[in-house]
């Protein structure tokens, strides 16, 4: 019987397995012979217009075989669409809606593409701006064209013309420069679609007979990276100042070598000049037919110093994440480092003698990653973060580090923090914990065994996300990817460089923010320049556009952005430090030095003294670099520097693959000139 049944089963199996591909092929064939027909077959919409798409599936003979379709698009931010075909145009452009059989199965479901054109709204208003009252013959100046559509959007993609009623007096070139040829009255008319705007102006004889050029480096050597402020003064033949004479600045440069440099200098139209490369420069100022020039030499900045390894605390069994160095309550110096993708360890080190860095304790918690480690101002309490807890309740661990050789876990706090805490900051007995990449929770740890949440800060922007937070003088500076850096008053001090808004941990108040297009904002660090008194928030990127290799060397991208705040409402990005073929991670500023970890680019120590403008890397401001690598590292000889901390004359840094390092700049060659 068994043999018989087996034979029968086998026969059936052969039958079925033989039939199954035939059935699938038949399905596919059926699908291939069917087409989706929509009404209409294409769409031309205005913004805000709504329409209902319908459709059905036909066989080869044109018979309707199904009316069950779904409609969808990848342009969901531009077209609002429901699966039953209701469409609303949100943004202008060319898009595709896909109509697909809902019963078509897995293979080759019948579908068709419906092209959708959404027209731009008509222009509502145009205007010419930026033209002063006094215009002088022989000069030129840029005019600003503003075009607003009926949806209130400022448009830059509309064709327009600017015509002059008297071309012999004034014209506008293809780059919107107003060229003033001779005295007289003229009218400019801006036309875009069916909207136009006119402005009538008068050109006067240019009273400028002479230009004088001064700068703020008189009797001082100009080094690469020094921002020289030029100031051209227009005067009449009688010696009176012409305050509103339009002046343009330019330069000619001859670098010291002919090695094919790119941009060797930069000049702004407010007269600020910075040399990237040493050489001879001539700065020119021009107003009409009058010009003046000044020639000078820029010498190498010459700030390079040697850097030496003082000590190392090798971590080879796992990856190392963040670090914190502090003076313990016993007066000795200690460090704590986190671990990444490992066994949930935080390693404590005695670094009193940085030549002999010694691991003195390891705290292991239920986690895979202890990304961040922080110690409070008194040096007795530490907080470590958890990701990858086995019960999926991550949160933070609060430690007693009074005796870093015998660290005690005081409490585990995960209320509303189960998503994982990536970064923290401790400030005045409160922990600011970046929660699940969405917000930071503010946790009172006055009694570290009984922490409690007092408030939280979260942005309200669509899809907002946060990575890190740093606090100085009662102001929290968070880094928020595409939302950039955000300053929040959590108890602003009088010592703060910028005014607060009566915030507190219980009542955090947003002060200002700055975002940049890449959306790579990963870290933020405020600093007041010791040499100029200017206040900056330095925003660091993190990006890995080249993919990842968790077992080998990796390459990052991104740089450090210098954002100057004169007040909270008008931040301006003025300079950058970008290392070719590497990417920024964590950094620290002490005095007028930037200590920056650049992953595969190692540690960079950068002179950020003086006014900052342009490309600091090209200006020769790099003081030193160091590439930590060790043949016994977790990944041998693969530099991947995580973060630095200057401390008592040494530079400590953590490297993802090789652990903790202590370095020191040698006291040589810091004379500032050649």
């Amino acid at each position: 019987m068994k043999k018989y049944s087996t034979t029968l089963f086998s026969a059936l199996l052969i039958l079925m397995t033989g039939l199954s591909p035939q059935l699938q092929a038949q399905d596919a064939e059926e699908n291939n012979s069917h087409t989706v027909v929509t009404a209409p077959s294409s769409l031309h919409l205005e913004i805000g217009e709504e329409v209902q798409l319908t459709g059905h599936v036909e066989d080869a003979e044109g018979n309707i075989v199904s009316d069950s379709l779904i409609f969808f698009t990848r342009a969901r931010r531009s077209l609002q669409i429901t699966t039953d075909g209701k469409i609303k145009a949100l943004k202008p452009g060319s898009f595709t809606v896909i109509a697909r059989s809902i019963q078509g199965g897995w293979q080759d479901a019948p579908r068709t593409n419906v092209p959708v054109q959404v027209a731009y709204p008509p222009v509502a208003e145009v205007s010419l701006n930026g033209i002063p009252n006094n215009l002088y013959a022989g000069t030129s100046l840029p005019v600003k064209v503003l075009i607003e559509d009926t949806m209130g959007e400022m448009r830059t993609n509309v064709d327009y013309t600017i015509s002059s009623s008297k071309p012999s007096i004034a014209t506008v070139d293809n780059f919107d420069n107003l060229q003033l040829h001779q005295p007289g009255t003229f009218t400019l008319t801006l036309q875009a679609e069916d909207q136009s705007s006119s402005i009538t102006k008068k050109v006067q004889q240019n009273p400028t007979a002479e230009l004088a050029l001064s700068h703020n480096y008189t009797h001082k050597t100009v080094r690469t990276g020094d921002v020289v402020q030029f100031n051209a003064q227009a005067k009449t033949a009688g010696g009176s100042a012409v305050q509103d004479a339009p002046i343009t600045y330019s330069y000619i440069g001859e670098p010291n070598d002919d090695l094919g440099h790119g941009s060797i200098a930069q000049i702004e139209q407010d007269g600020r000049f910075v040399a990237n490369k040493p050489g001879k420069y001539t700065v020119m100022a021009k107003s009409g037919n009058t010009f003046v020039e000044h020639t000078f030499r820029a010498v190498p900045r010459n700030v390079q110093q040697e850097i030496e390894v003082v000590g190392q605390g090798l971590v080879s069994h796992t990856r190392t994440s963040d670090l914190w160095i502090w003076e313990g309550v016993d007066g000795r110096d200690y460090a704590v480092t986190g671990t990444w993708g490992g066994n949930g360890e935080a390693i404590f080190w005695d670094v009193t003698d940085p030549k002999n860095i010694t691991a003195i304790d390891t705290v292991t918690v239920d986690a895979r990653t202890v990304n961040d480690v922080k110690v409070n101002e008194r040096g007795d309490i530490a907080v470590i973060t958890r990701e990858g807890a086995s019960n999926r309740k991550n949160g933070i661990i609060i430690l007693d580090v009074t005796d870093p050789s015998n660290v005690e876990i005081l409490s585990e706090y995960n209320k509303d923090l189960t998503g994982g805490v990536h970064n923290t900051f401790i400030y005045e007995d409160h922990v600011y914990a970046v929660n699940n990449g969405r917000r930071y929770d503010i946790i009172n740890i006055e009694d570290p065994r009984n922490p409690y949440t007092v408030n939280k800060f979260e942005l309200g922007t669509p899809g907002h996300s946060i990575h890190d937070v740093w606090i100085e003088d009662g102001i929290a500076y968070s880094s928020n990817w595409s939302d950039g850096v955000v300053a929040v008053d959590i108890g602003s001090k009088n010592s703060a460089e910028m005014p607060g808004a009566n915030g507190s941990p219980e009542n955090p108040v947003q002060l200002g923010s700055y975002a940049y297009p890449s959306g790579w904002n990963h870290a933020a660090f405020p600093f007041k320049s010791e040499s100029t008194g200017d206040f900056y928030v330095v925003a660091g990127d993190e990006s890995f556009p080249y993919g990842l290799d968790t077992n080998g060397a990796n390459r990052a991208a991104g740089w450090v952005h210098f954002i100057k705040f004169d007040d909270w409402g008008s931040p301006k990005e003025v300079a950058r430090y970008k290392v070719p073929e590497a990417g920024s991670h964590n950094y620290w500023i002490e005095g007028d030095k930037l200590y920056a970890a650049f992953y595969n680019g190692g540690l960079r120590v950068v002179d950020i003294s003086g006014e900052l403008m342009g490309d600091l890397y090209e200006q020769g401001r790099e003081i030193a670099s160091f590439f930590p690598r060790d043949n016994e590292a977790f990944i041998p000889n693969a530099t991947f520097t995580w973060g630095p901390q200057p401390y008592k004359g040494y530079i400590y840094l953590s490297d993802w693959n090789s652990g903790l390092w202590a370095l020191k700049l040698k006291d040589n060659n810091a004379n500032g000139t050649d």
Partner: protein
Amino acid sequence: MKFLKPLFTLVLFVVIAGTENLQAQDYYAYVAAESEDMVHLIHFNAETQQATIAETIEVGRYPTETDGPHGITVAPDGKHWFVSIAHGNPYGMLAKYSTETNKLVSTTDLGMFPASMEISEVTGLLYVVNFNLHGEMKPSSVSVVEPESMTRITDIETGIMPHGSRIGASGKYQYHVSMMTDELIQINTQTLEVSKRFKLSETKGGMSGHKDMDHSKMEHKPVEKPTWAHPHPTKPLIYVAANGSDELLEINTKKWEITQRYKTGKAPYNLEVTPDGKYVVVTYKGEGATGIWDLEEGKEVAKIENSRKVSHGVTISPDSKYAFISVEGIGGEPGSVEVINLQTLERVDVVETGKQAGGIYFWKQS
């Protein structure tokens, strides 16, 4: 002819189950290592009874962040596999890979902490729950993705912490559970609407909630904390892992009532019914074990200790012979995939994986 396909498939399973001479030798399954940002292709050789990692694929976006591959599924034609990446800035994503090359094909963004998923053979669409594991206690969604173009078509609002997305044999319904509202939820795969909400904890006799109930005002004190739902291949039954009450629930979807409650090991988490309908295999997350329940007898016929703690997922070969169990482990400990012979009810091999082995899905046997 389409209606014949499920019937033929069913007969095929029966035939395979009854045929001793025609045996597959090589079994393959994909498993995600959530804390390692890796997916492993597991190969099990039935002749040697040994499992190995055939290939490891790195997934995710950031080398210095744990992106967290969580749920995984394979297309019905076996040509592509899909993995949900839990973390992003802030949203997770779905990634599509070729099974031929194991190379990334395409991605699309999803909601918060996207997790388990499956594809309906009727609609050809992929249904993935946005678990929003660490979010606020508010309803999340099931994202529906057209997997060919990798377009997220729509999000269907569902319960709080939805999990365990599985498609019934007819392909017409998707089932998942709402962990924090103690609900089994059915979605019509063609109308893309919630077609049934079934409350698991209010009455032992079973009481179905109405799909239009205002769940935002419900008090969220879950009892069952259901974490997984899996439909029976031939009967109108859904099996649910009640993680909070240590129970295996059987729900009859004709009557919409709980027809069986079985007390299980600690914290049942994932489960799957064998294609022949004989067993349901349940992971016991809280005790590092796997239970095998005979559905005819209504009893646990084997409890097999896992090699480490935190048992997670289960996938079963189409011939109903082998169950592949993923086990997370703790901390720096590797995860594992454990192969259970469902004929002998014994664990036959363990293969270590990256940390926190979680989502697991069978690919092919040959």
